[in-house]
């Protein structure tokens, strides 16, 4: 796959063009990947048995199920690497030149942050990283770990990892252990958010992978601090 890139300025222009014309200006070389992504999106809606109008009421389910499919497609069929996934120009291109219509279905066109404006908030990029940081080795195990989360967990996980880069093994361990908590209880107590805030403070002095017992013991410590127990 020869990934094409846009600058922020170019993507801003392409976004305005998409909004005014309502048509997608996808180049020929991207028509196959465009079709593939659209099919995944349609498959996600039918898996949830919803139509396009019901996306906002099912935002998280759409995000994580579509995210899982997108992650597998980009990695397995189009050889997406972490280096590529960290390159904002690639996501800008996909967002405004290939599938802006899908982002519009999810967010409407009054959220330019999700199309081009905030490189860290681009919907497709956020989904890819959410799945990457939650990956448990295969599709089904990852789906199982993510099924009871909400869009707040996406934001907290993908956004809160600071300026230092993601600790991938820690994130995956955290997501696994978090899924073992009672879904009702964790919603009420916002425990994920609290654990991420505590983590941000702790990593100033402690490196999770260097703790005796590794990331697993480190995540247990984050939980114990708030007095919760895994089920």
């Amino acid at each position, binding site marked *: 796959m020869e990934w094409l890139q846009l600058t*922020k300025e170019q993507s801003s222009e392409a976004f305005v063009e998409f909004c005014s014309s309502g048509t997608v200006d996808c180049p020929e070389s991207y028509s196959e990947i465009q079709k593939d992504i659209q099919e995944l999106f349609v498959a996600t809606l039918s898996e949830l048995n919803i139509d396009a109008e019901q996306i906002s009421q099912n935002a998280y389910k759409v995000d994580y199920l579509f995210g899982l499919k997108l992650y597998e497609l980009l990695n397995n069929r189009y050889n997406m690497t972490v280096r590529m*996934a960290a390159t904002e120009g690639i996501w800008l291109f996909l967002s405004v030149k290939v599938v802006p219509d899908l982002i519009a279905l999810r967010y409407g066109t009054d959220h330019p942050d999700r199309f081009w404006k905030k490189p860290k908030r681009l919907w497709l990029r956020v989904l890819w990283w959410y799945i990457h940081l939650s990956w448990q080795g295969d599709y089904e195990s990852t789906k199982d770990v993510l099924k009871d989360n909400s869009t707040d967990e996406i934001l907290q996980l993908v956004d809160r990892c600071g*300026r230092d*880069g993601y600790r991938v093994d820690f994130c995956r361990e955290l997501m696994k252990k978090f899924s073992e908590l009672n879904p009702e209880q964790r919603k009420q107590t916002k425990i994920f958010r609290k654990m991420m805030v505590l983590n941000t403070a702790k990593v*100033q002095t402690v490196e999770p992978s260097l703790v005796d017992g590794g990331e697993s013991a480190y995540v247990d410590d984050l939980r114990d601090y708030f007095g919760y127990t895994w089920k």
Partner: protein
Amino acid sequence: MSKAFSLYPVLSDALTEKAGIETEPTELSYLDDGDYYPLSMEDIEGESRRFSARLSDVRCVWSADTHNLILRKAGTIQHPDLLFGKDGIVPHDAIIGIAGIWSSKRSDLHGTILFGKFGMRVNTYNFNQEYRFESGELRGSIHFKLVLYLKESSGQPYTNELHLANQTGIVLGCIEEFDLMIDGNGSVFPIYYVNEPDRPLWWVHFSSDDPFEDAFDDQNVVLYLNQAHPSYGELKINDSLRESPLFLEVISSALYIIVQSVKELVSDEWDEIVSGQSLEQGTIAEAVSYFINKLGWDTSNPVNLALSIHDYFDKNLR
């Protein structure tokens, strides 16, 4: 962030020297078609234990997309026993580990490399570890820190050791750290040539939301030069800056705009840029910090900034 105040003793320069902690130069190499080739560090700036450099391949083959990067680091601790006990950094019966902690903001990644561990009862301790970054993993630059950390806590610290760190995973100090630029040379001022009648001779595009994260590259900062403008020829682009006062004016003004834009954008965090501490390599913040601290530009107000930029070019180019 790495400057966080510490509640327990950490490795000082004095203790590093006393304990005889020494490292060999970092060895970098890569695998290409079944053979290993060395990579070198160029443009090294800073001190021996804290520096920045650019990755260079004499064969011009290495690329982060297609090749791995093998890092080897070795060193010696002559008197490890001095790191233990009340005047050291951990209790007498704890175990110290050595690790590499690397991070790369522009790769969105952070990782650790285990080097080894030792207790109080060893003589000279040698470490030597290799690590492979896979192809397609790294982007921009990496920051590498060789650290000591608490590997295993003390079962029974003496009463005079209770002030020492005793939580595993705690970083006890840095032996050596460096920034390694792996893509490009990081110093290119992005200039685009356009052909747009009815537009000015030049303009600046600046679209960063966060100069601490955004790269000083054409995603965020571009100087546009308009070939359709009647005065374009006067720029004498192909001559050196020295022979084109107009082009020099354009560059000076563009840099003025960029610095002022960053200053207005970051407002409260401007001090971080001025101090130049813990800035990610290759970011807009780091570039501006370089202008201030290395080129001596005066950003106290717009008048002084314009003056000092011109002054800099006058003194250094003419």
